[in-house]
């Protein structure tokens, strides 16, 4: 069994509760141990980097320092794309920019911490696809999700700029969809921003971005959109009504976490699917029993 240091991040205990639940359930089946980082702090998300750069690296580095002490040599795994990006960025910057490193080191030092830079930061999707492997996922599938048309939405932060998947045409999620017997639909908006960070500041723009993603999935005939990030999920799901109101559309596309889709294929529970706002249509409902 592989053990990873798991960094949940704030959203996972709030809007992304379903992600946390389903991940826990599915991890058991996949035989991976996620040891939650003790005393973790907020990653600062992507926004903070633009406001106070050094400080945001320092708070990110605090998590890495803790991880190094608690699980030396273990990869740090995040499920939220923003957390993944933030931690990864700090991890890379510390190696690349000695000046920054000095300042972050002194900040850590003040708290009695130290980070050697020995860890790798990874996204849970990468762990599932590369460490566990598609063959194993297929083998663990007890009910093939045959006939289910899935739009795989990777979002922007997971694949840019440190993608383990192609940043323009991501393919890993589609491969996973195939592994559980479902059908990926061509999805041109797979790596476009959902507008998540703008929903509070520039709602018009954000709604338009969300609308385009939903529209693309609908055009492709998707029964469901799967995501890898609590922010994307919330944005696409919770704002569908607002989008419908603003654009006169009538979307009702369920937005699942990819872990929930795996859970359906493995026939395990709990997956937190009932937490979603957009309700499953018949194609998806068949598999929720």
């Amino acid at each position, binding site marked *: 069994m592989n053990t990873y240091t798991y960094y949940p991040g704030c959203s996972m205990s709030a809007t992304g509760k379903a992600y946390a639940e389903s991940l826990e359930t599915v991890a058991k089946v996949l035989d991976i141990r996620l040891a939650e980082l003790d005393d973790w702090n907020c990653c600062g998300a992507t926004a903070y980097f633009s406001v106070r750069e050094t400080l945001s690296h320092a708070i990110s580095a605090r998590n890495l320092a803790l991880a190094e002490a608690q699980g030396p040599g273990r990869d740090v795994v995040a499920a939220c794309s923003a957390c993944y990006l933030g931690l990864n960025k700090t991890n890379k910057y510390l190696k690349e920019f000695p000046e920054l490193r000095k300042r972050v080191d002194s900040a850590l030092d003040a708290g009695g911490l130290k980070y050697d830079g020995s860890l790798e930061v990874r996204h849970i999707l990468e762990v599932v696809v590369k460490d566990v492997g598609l063959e194993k996922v297929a083998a663990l599938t007890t009910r093939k999700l045959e006939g289910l048309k899935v739009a795989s939405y990777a979002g922007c932060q997971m694949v840019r700029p440190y993608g383990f998947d192609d*940043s*323009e045409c991501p393919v890993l999620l589609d491969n996973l969809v195939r592994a559980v017997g479902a059908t990926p639909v*061509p999805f*041109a*908006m797979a790596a476009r921003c959902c507008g998540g960070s703008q929903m509070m500041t520039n709602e018009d723009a954000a709604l338009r971005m969300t609308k385009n993603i939903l529209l693309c999935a609908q055009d492709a005939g998707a029964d469901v959109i799967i995501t890898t990030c609590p922010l994307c999920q919330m944005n696409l799901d919770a704002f569908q009504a607002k989008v419908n109101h603003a654009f006169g559309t009538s979307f009702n596309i369920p937005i699942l976490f990819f872990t929930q889709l795996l859970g359906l294929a493995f026939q395990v529970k709990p997956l937190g699917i009932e937490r979603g706002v957009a309700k499953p249509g018949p194609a998806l409902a068949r598999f929720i029993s």
Partner: protein
Amino acid sequence: MKNPVIGVYVCHCGSNIGSVVNVPEVVEFAKGLPNVAVAREHKYMCSDPGQDVIKKDIKELGLNRVVVASCSPLMHEHTFRKACESAGLNPYYFQMANIREQVSWVTTDKVRATEKAKVVLVGAVNRVVEHDPLFVKSVPVTPATLVIGGGVAGIEAALQVAASHTQVHLVEKEPSLGGHMARFDKTFPTLDCAACILTPKMVQANTNPFIKVHAYSEVIEVSGYVGNFTVKIRHKASYVNNDKCTGCGVCITKCPERGIPAEFESGLGNRPVYVAPDAPQHGKKPKDTFGKRPAIYTPFAQAVPNKPVIDRDNCRYYTTGKCRVCEKMCEPGAIDFDQKDWIEEIQVGNIIVATGMKTFDPTPMKNLGYGRIPDVYTGLEFERICHSSGPTEGQILTWKKESPKAIAIVHCVGSRDDKHHRHCSRVCCMYSLKYAHLIKEKLHNCEVYEFYIDMRCFGKGYEEFYSRLLQEDVRFVRGRVAEVSDWGIYPEEKGRLVVRVEDTLAAQVRRIPVDMVILSTALEPAENADHLKHTLHMSCSSDLFYLERHPKLAPVSTATDGIYIAGACQGPKDIPDSVAQAGAAAAQAIGMIKRGVVEIEPTTAHIEESMCTGCQICIPLCPYTAIRRNEEKRIAYIEGALCKGCGTCVGACPSGAAQQWGFDDRQIYREIEGVLAAK
């Protein structure tokens, strides 16, 4: 040895040296150096008056050593050696101190620049004392030229050299001559038909008694030296006996294997066939021959030489053991399944490299959709779509065989892009304009968009061509394309392609629906350019094209004497420039052959017999196997004609018996002492 009497000459090089290095100070300093009889400065040492100063001093002051502190020896060593020689001094009693490229141009601090100039000068003055008189050897030139690459540049070079009744070997790796130009329909800016001007040249080359065309062949080894190269050519097995083959083409029409993507049609044959969703389903799949060729083929109808070759990897006989249809159909009995690759050795005096370029594969630029969206084409593919003998017979049709209503042409794909190639590919703006014109000519109502960064219409008649296109209702959008998407948001975009671009003149992001996208891809060095570089010991510039000896003054020479470059292998260029370079290279080759002799640098290695202990360390080190053992005397000796003067044996000889003329231990020691003399 006579006492050394040294003349030192320091050049201002206009202001190139003089504005940074304090030349008068260096001259004063030189006057105080041991053995220096005279030190002078001059505005331009390399000019005739400058050289005359040296000549005069040699004669009047009896100088027996000369040092010039000026530019790089790679630039003017030859000039000054000649000057010494014409004044009766052995040219190797000369040494150059490089105070321009390696001092004044790389330093801003005048004091430190002047100090370094002095130090470098002391090195040279010290060294020249130890110089020996050396004598250039003349060797006869083999009166034949090898041209590698049968594109328009190679063909032109071959024809020019042959015009002087010199034997030419023209080696082309493909089954036919022609290169890229053979694939074009029209050529910018005159829009003359490519085949009409190229085919006659191809035929001339093939029938010229002084040109031997080695098609479907590659140069695998080159040895020897300027004037006398030995070249090994590998003739790839074509499984067709060219002496018997009449070129009737029956084999090609009868070959049952017809689905191999044709190299000549670029990537057109790689696309799946379009099947309409409502097409009636007959059990059998429709036969797909679009952009495909049989297993026995000539690349195109006018191929020269017109002899087919069998593609062994795809031939049914070789893959399944059964077929041999072509053999049965061939009346003259030219098919020979037992043919093997064979190697021919030829002797030539010099070599012209004209291996051209290839185009950038845009697949990695996922945002542009090439390889994923069938209606995204490269320029070379569109060239074939436009071509009357291409797979669409010159009709501009989309993948679904519909007439496009709007076409986007995207410039600089892979060029001027830090992620791919930093260079400008020079011809793309122009061929993009050519496409716009051809599209407008064939489809009057089709909208054409050119997405450009800058329009670069540099050649004769090119700007005029651009102006003309501006009148032809072509839409020019300045901006780098962000994305080509096959999913449209708005009703007018549905089922079409959408080009997303920042229009930097209108200062807004635009979405433009089109039906076809042409990517004007970068030009990059030919497939095996790197391999050939090693075979010929050439160098490359940072864009990986072959490096010329001097960008302005020796654009077709290379650092290796007797090897010239022409055409797009030296850097992206259009046909007129390629042809001009081919002529220039041919003139150089002919010049050498007409002279009949070449001079070989005397800076080779030799063995001091009395010091050689016979340890044989040097023997395996020599890359040219020039060192042999004299069994009788139990010592090593160097075969002068084979030695190229790298000095590796000299560097390794434990007893100091191996020495290199012009670079022997004494000389380098004195130079080391010199540059470190100052305290």
